[in-house]
């Protein structure tokens, strides 16, 4: 019997596994470095402000669009459903929980992973292949402190107000749809929202913001730093960054909800 293909296959798997764990280890050290260099924030204040504009202010339109679409969509669909049961007065309660706890943050996370993550991956990847990252190192500057840490802090700081904005826009577009599509009295809508929202509903949403900030920034930056092989390489690493960070956002969204709701 010929065992050669099976052995070759096993060898291939072994190599891939080894590669995977090496990459994981590198990613871990890279992330650690990003956090350990936070005390240098004063020196890189300008970079922080630039990044805060990019991931904060410039992201407002996309966050609004996603919040408004998810808010109105939920109000319409859930309203239709509740109407069958004659429970349209419950509309405020069911949409607000969804907007604030689950779909609102999730959609925002995915949008930011596409927007901020893609930008990081492409920008840092281009810097890697044009040897600018090596140039930083050659000048005795830690590229993680200069390039990654300001992005991380900017995302950590800016994702919170973006979440608030997304909650606000989502709820109000739901209320608008309730009034104009389902002919529900606004008082009735808001009455079902406020008294029923518990602090934990907000905590879930606001814990997700920093978790997504860390995932998106570190994964996309790490992939940018690992870009090899010309412009095509930058493309590959950018895509990888977005795919992996979106996947992790989905997983984290589930676990944050589960952990916070079970413990509060």
């Amino acid at each position, binding site marked *: 019997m010929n065992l050669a293909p099976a052995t070759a296959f096993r060898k291939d798997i072994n190599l891939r596994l080894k590669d995977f764990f090496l990459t994981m280890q590198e990613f871990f050290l890279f992330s650690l470095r990003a956090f350990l260099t936070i005390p240098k924030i004063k*020196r890189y204040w300008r970079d922080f402000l630039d990044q805060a504009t990019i991931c904060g202010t410039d992201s407002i339109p996309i966050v609004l669009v996603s919040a408004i679409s998810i808010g109105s969509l939920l109000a319409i669909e859930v309203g239709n459903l509740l109407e069958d049961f004659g429970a349209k007065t419950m509309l405020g309660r069911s949409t607000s929980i969804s907007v604030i706890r689950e779909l609102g943050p999730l959609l925002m996370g995915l949008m930011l992973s596409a927007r901020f993550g893609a930008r990081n991956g492409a920008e840092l990847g281009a*810097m890697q292949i*044009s*040897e*600018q990252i*090596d*140039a930083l*190192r*050659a*000048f*005795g*500057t*830690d590229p993680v402190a200069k390039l990654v840490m300001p992005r991380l802090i900017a995302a950590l700081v800016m994702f919170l107000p973006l979440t608030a904005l997304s909650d606000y826009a989502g709820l109000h577009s739901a209320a608008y749809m309730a009034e104009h599509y389902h002919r529900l009295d606004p008082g009735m809508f808001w009455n079902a929202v406020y008294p029923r929202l518990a602090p934990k509903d907000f905590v879930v949403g606001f814990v997700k913001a920093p978790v997504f900030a860390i995932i998106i920034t570190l994964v996309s930056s790490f992939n940018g730093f690992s870009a090899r092989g010309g412009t095509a390489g930058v493309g590959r690493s950018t895509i990888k960054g977005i795919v992996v960070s979106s996947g992790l956002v989905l997983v984290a969204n589930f676990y944050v909800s589960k952990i916070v709701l079970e413990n509060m």
Partner: protein
Amino acid sequence: MIELRNVSLKYGDREILNNISLTIADNSIKAILGPSGVGKSTILKLMLGLIKPNSGQVIIDGTDITKLKETELYPIRRKMGMVFQGNALFDSMTIDQNLGFFLRENLNLSEKEIESRVTEQIQFAGLEGYEDKLPESLSGGMRKRVAIGRALIFRPHMILFDEPTAGLDPVSSKKILTLISTLKKSNNLGAVIVTHIIDDVFNVADHVAVLYQGKMIFDDVVSKLHESTHPFILSILSDKILEL
């Protein structure tokens, strides 16, 4: 002083450098010659600790840097200026910011002092009017001059040039080579110059090392180059310019 001791390096399965030894004394200029793809840029990166050899030692002023962690390498790298082959200018920064980068990062200078040094460098490089431009709007030769200015501005005592005159007109080349000789005399600058233009070697270098197929086939004072009988050296001496 920079010293490579029995350095070997592989990329994957491909052997690039095979047991190379090389010394660059302070206040001397060494040229490294060799055909394209032989590993000249790789040698400069080894000297800065940007990559690590598979075996052998890289010794900078008495410290073996192959054993050091990245954070321990920073102070050592700051002793050396590097001009990358593709310039590696920071493309999101203006010319002014590129030139002042090292000063702002690593030296405790007043903003006024930094500005005056940057202005001096701008004038020297003939870049007046381009201070606030981004590198993308400069010509190839201008970018090279910015890259050289960026490495010289903090007055390192050793400077590594990867093809400093490639793509420059004869006048600019001459200016840069003259500058290197002047700095050597006045500031005790040492330099490693990777080049494929043999005239550069005769113009400024004290010593020359020739890298060929992973090995050093020549390493001596420039005047001895004519005595070599190695076919590769004979061919570059007769052609004057290495085939790229």
